[in-house]
C-alpha cells in the first residue's frame, strides 16, 4: 500500500470525469483511447463517439508508466510531416511495436502492450505550459512554468516557480499564494486564465488524492485545454474513500519489470484476502539462501545481513515476510510456496540450500501456531528438501515461542531434516552467520 503510478489514459479519464466540477470555465475534449494492438484500435474507430479516429490526424505512444517517450522515439506523430498519421498507419505502427522487444535508453527492456491514441494538436511552443503537484516533506508543492515540453526539464531551476502549500492551508490563502507566484513568463492575456486553472488543478490534485500529478505540456488555446502528456500517481490507501471517482484506474507493473510469477501472484492474492500480511518477491530463483521471515522490519534486517555476510547478493533467492497473526492455513500455504520454489533448481555450485526461518520477538503473533503451518509444509516437502541438502536455521521469540521451537525441532528431526533452532537469547540475525560459516 503506497503511492502507485497509473496510466496516462486513466489519469485523463479522471480529469474528464471531474472536469465540470473543477474546470467549468475551460473546455477539455478527452479524445483518448487505450488499446493493446492494431485491431483493437481499428475496432474502436467503428464505435459511436470515436469517429475522430478516422477523421483526424493521430498521435500514438506507449502508455506504460515510463517517460521520455519522445527521446526514445516512441511517439508516432508524423509519417511524412507532423500531423499526417492516419488510423491505419497508427494501427500498423502499434502492431510493429508489439511484435518485438523494446529497449529504452535507460536500459529497461520489455514488450510494449498498451498504447494511448489521441488527435494531433497543432500548436506553437509558446502555447505550451507546465504544471505539476506533489508532496515534499509534509507539504504539497505546486510547480508552475511558462514553458512546457522538454524545454522545462533543461533549466528547471530558472524556469519553474515552486509554490509550497502547507497541508492545513485554507482555500483563500492558497489562491492568494498561487496568484503571487504565477510565472513571470506567462503572457498577460493568459495570466488570469492560468491562475484560475492552476488553482483548480491544485484542488483537483488534492481532493482526488493524487500523490503526484504532472501535465507537461499543457496547451492553452483560449479556454481550450489540451493535456498533451500526463503522469500521475495515486495514494492507493485512499482507494476505499474514492469509489468511482478514480474511474477504476488500475496500477500496472512498471515497464521492464518482470511480470509477477504465478507464485508471487498467489501470495499477493492470499495477502489481499487476509487480515494478516503475506509478501513474497523472488529475487533470484536459482539463489541458494531462502528466507521465511516474520515481520516487516525483521525481513529487511535478514536481507541486509545475508547480502553483507554472503558476499554475493545473488545468493539471496527471495524477499518476503509474514506478519499480523496469519492463520495456520495461511502460513502453511506461504511455506509450501517458498519450499516449492526452493527445491526446483539444484545449486549450480553443488552447495547446500539454506532456509532461514527468522523473526524478531513477536508482540502478539502466536509463534507455535504459525510454526504449525510451517511444519505441515515440511511434511509435504521433506523429501525434496533433503534432495537439495537443505539446512534449516530457525530463530524466533514471542508468545508461545518455546513450544513453537520445540515443535519445529521435533518435526524436522522426525522427518530427517537438518535443523538448528534458537530463541531470543540469540541475536536475531546471528543464524545467518552460523548458516554461512558452516
Amino acid at each position: 500500500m503506497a503511492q502507485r503510478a497509473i496510466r496516462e489514459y486513466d489519469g485523463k479519464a479522471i480529469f474528464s470525469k471531474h472536469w465540470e466540477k473543477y474546470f467549468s470555465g475551460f473546455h477539455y475534449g478527452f479524445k483518448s483511447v487505450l488499446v493493446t494492438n492494431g485491431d483493437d484500435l481499428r475496432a474502436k474507430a467503428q464505435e459511436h463517439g470515436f469517429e475522430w479516429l478516422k477523421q483526424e490526424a493521430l498521435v500514438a505512444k506507449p502508455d506504460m508508466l515510463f517517460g521520455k517517450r519522445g527521446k526514445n522515439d516512441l511517439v508516432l506523430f508524423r509519417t511524412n510531416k507532423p500531423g499526417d498519421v492516419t488510423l491505419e498507419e497508427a494501427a500498423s505502427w502499434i502492431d510493429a511495436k508489439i511484435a518485438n522487444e523494446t529497449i529504452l535508453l535507460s536500459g529497461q527492456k520489455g514488450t510494449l502492450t498498451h498504447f494511448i491514441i489521441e488527435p494531433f494538436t497543432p500548436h506553437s511552443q509558446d502555447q505550451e505550459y507546465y504544471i505539476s503537484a506533489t508532496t515534499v516533506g509534509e507539504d504539497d508543492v505546486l510547480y508552475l512554468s511558462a514553458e512546457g515540453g522538454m524545454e522545462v526539464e533543461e533549466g528547471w531551476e530558472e524556469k519553474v516557480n515552486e509554490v509550497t502549500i502547507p497541508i492545513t492551508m485554507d482555500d483563500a490563502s492558497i489562491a492568494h499564494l498561487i496568484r503571487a507566484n504565477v510565472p513571470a513568463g506567462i503572457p498577460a492575456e493568459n495570466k488570469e486564465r492560468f491562475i484560475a486553472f492552476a488553482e483548480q488543478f491544485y484542488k483537483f490534485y488534492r481532493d482526488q488524492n493524487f500523490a503526484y500529478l504532472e501535465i507537461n505540456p499543457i496547451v492553452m488555446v483560449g479556454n481550450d485545454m489540451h493535456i498533451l502528456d500526463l503522469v500521475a500517481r495515486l495514494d492507493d490507501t485512499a482507494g476505499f474513500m474514492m469509489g468511482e471517482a478514480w474511474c477504476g484506474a488500475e496500477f500496472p507493473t512498471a515497464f521492464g519489470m518482470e511480470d509477477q510469477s504465478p507464485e508471487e501472484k498467489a501470495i499477493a492474492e492470499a495477502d489481499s484476502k487476509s487480515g494478516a500480511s503475506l509478501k513474497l518477491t523472488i529475487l533470484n530463483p536459482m539463489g541458494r539462501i531462502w528466507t521465511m521471515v516474520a515481520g516487516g522490519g525483521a525481513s529487511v534486517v535478514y536481507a541486509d545481513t545475508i547480502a553483507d555476510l554472503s558476499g554475493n547478493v545473488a545468493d539471496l533467492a527471495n524477499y518476503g515476510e509474514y506478519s499480523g497473526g496469519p492463520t495456520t492455513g495461511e502460513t502453511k500455504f506461504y511455506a509450501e510456496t517458498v519450499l516449492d520454489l526452493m527445491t526446483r533448481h539444484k545449486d549450480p555450485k553443488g552447495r547446500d540450500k539454506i532456509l532461514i526461518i527468522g523473526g524478531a520477538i513477536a508482540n502478539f503473533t502466536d509463534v507455535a501456531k504459525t510454526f504449525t503451518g510451517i511444519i505441515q509444509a515440511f511434511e509435504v516437502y521433506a523429501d525434496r528438501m533433503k534432495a537439495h541438502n537443505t539446512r534449516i536455521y530457525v530463530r524466533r521469540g514471542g508468545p508461545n515461542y518455546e513450544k513453537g521451537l520445540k515443535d519445529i525441532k521435533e518435526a524436522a528431526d522426525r522427518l530427517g531434516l537438518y535443523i538448528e533452532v534458537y530463541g531470543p537469547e540469540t541475536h536475531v540475525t546471528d543464524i545467518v552467520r552460523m548458516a554461512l560459516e558452516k
Partner: protein
Amino acid sequence: MGALFTKDTQAIFWNNNASAIQRMLDYDYVINRVKPSVAAIVAPTSGNKFEKFFYGPDEIMVPVFRNTVEAAAAFPKADVLLNFASFRTAYDVTMEAITIKGQFKTVMVTAEGIPERLARKMNQAARDAGVVVIGPATVGGISPGAFKIANVGGTIENIVNSKLHRAGSCGLVTRSGGLFNELSNIISINADGIAEGVAIGGDRFVGSVFIDNLLRMERNPEVKYMVLLGEVGGTEEYKVIEAVKSGLIKKPIIAWCIGTIAKHFSSGVQFGHAGASANADAETAAAKNIAMAEAGIFVPASFNDLPKTIADVYTKLRNEGIVTEIVEPELKTVPKVRRKKEFICTISDDRGDEATYAGYPISSVATPETGFGIGDVISLLWFKKRYPKWATDYLETVIKTVADHGPAVSGAHNAKVTARAGKDVISSLVTGLLTIGPRFGGAIDDAARYFKYANDNGMTPAQFIDYMKKEGKTISGIGHRIKSVRNPDLRVSGLKKYAAEHFPATPLLDFALEVEKLTTSKKDNLILNVDGTIGILMVDMWRALGYSESDIDGFIEAGALNAFFVVGRSIGFIGHILDEKRLGMPMYRHPTDDILYNVEMADEI
C-alpha cells in the same frame, strides 16, 4: 520532566481489543501500579456498560462508553488515547480526540494505511494542538515500570526477560514495531534495559518522528544514551544528525539504518514498510549510516554488530559513573490459570469481619444513634451513594406515602383473596405485587419518563400536551377520580411543600405545574396527582444530587421508581394479609350474579 508516561498515566482505549487491554493490565499488576493503566474503553457499537478483565488473580471492571467525548468527561485525567480504530476511521477518532480541550497529551494510532493526506492533516492538527501522535502503523511505546501501550513488549514473560518491567538507562526509538521488541531484548542483554521507548510507525507520514522523541529523551534525566533504528527512505535521520552537530543532543546515540539490501535492486522491490523506499541517494540506508557515523553517532559495521556497539557504549558510561547499578524491583506474578467470575456484586460484601452495605458495616447504619434511616440504607444499596438528609427524608416520605391505598385496589384485593385461600404470607404478598405494572403503580414511572422527555427536549407545556395527544396517550401523573383544584389531594400538597422547603431546585416539578395549569383549565380534576408528583420530584432529586440525564434515564429504565412503590406498598399488602389471617376469613368465591355470562357454542372449523 521529559518523560512520556508516568506511573499515574491512564489511557482511554478506543476499540475493545480485549487481548491488548489484558496485556496492559497484566503489566500494571506485575509492576505494582496503583491504578489500572486503562481507565475506560470506547466501543461505539457495544451495548455493554463495562468489560471484565483480570487484574492479577482478581477481576476488575473497565467502563465502556459509546464515544470518546463521554469517556473523556468521565475520566478527565486520562490523557492518553490508544486509537485502535481501523484505517477507515482512525483519522476521525484522532481528530475528535484533539478537539476535546485539555484532555489528551498523547494519541497513539495503530492503523496501517490511513490515506496519506488524512494522515498529514491529522499529524499537523495534533502538532498545532500540542498533542503527541505516536504512529500511525505502530505497536506504540513504553515507559518501563510506569506505563505500557497495548501489545508492546509482547507477553509478560518476554517483558520481564527484556527488562521492560523497570526503567533502564537507554532511550529507544525505532520505526518497526517487531524490531522494537527485538532491540529492547538486545539492550537488556548488552546493557541495563530501556528507560523509555517509542516505535514511531511504518507509514510514510507519522506524527512524531525520530527527532521529536530523541529531543524529549535528551531532556529526560532517566535517559543516559539513545538507540535509534532507522530505515531506508526519508530524511528524518538527517534531522537527528543536525541536532547532534548543533549540540542540541549531547547524550550518546547509537544508530543503524536497516535496508542496506535495497542498493542491490534498482527499483520495484518494496523492502519493508510503506515509508521505506529511497527516492534519492541521501535516502539510502548506506548513505544515512555513513552520515550518522561522520556526525559522531555510534554506528556499527552491520546490524549483526549492533549488540557489541551497545555493550561498548554502555560499559563506557558505566565506567564513567553516568550509569549506575539498578536495584531490581519486587515483582508480582500473574497466575497462570485464572477463572472468570460468573457473578458480579458492587453493592455489598460479606467477606470481612462484618458484612457491609456499600462499604458501611451494618452495625454502623442499623441502630438509631447512627443517624441512618431506611432512606439511607436504600441510598447505599440501590444507588451506592450516601445521599444527604433532605434526599433520604424524601425517599422515606415516598415510601410512607405509597404504603397503602385501601383494600379495593387490585394488588391489595389479590393479596386478600390469596390469603383467604389459605396461602402463606409470601404467596399472598407475591400475588399482590404481581399486579404492579403499567396500570397499577406504573404512573410513577411513566410520569417521570414523559415529563422528563418533554423537559429534556425543550417542549413548552402546550407542546407537551399536543405531543401526548398525537402519541394517543393520556398524560401519566395527571388526573384524579375525586380530587380537583378546589378539593386538593393533601398528600400532593405535603410533597410539594417538602420539596419547596428542602430541595435545592425543582425544575421538573415547576414544568409539571405549568402543565397542570393548562390541563385544569380544561377540566377541574386534571390535577397533578400523587404518582406524578412522586416520579417528577424523584427526577428533580437526582438532578440536584448531580446525576447526569443519562444516569437518570438509566434509573427510570431499570425500574427504580417502580421499586419504591414495590417496597412501600408491600407494607400495606402485608397489613392486609395479616388482617385476613387475624380475621380468619374463609375461602373467597366471587358471586355468580356479579359476572356477565355470555357463552356461545363453539363453531367447528
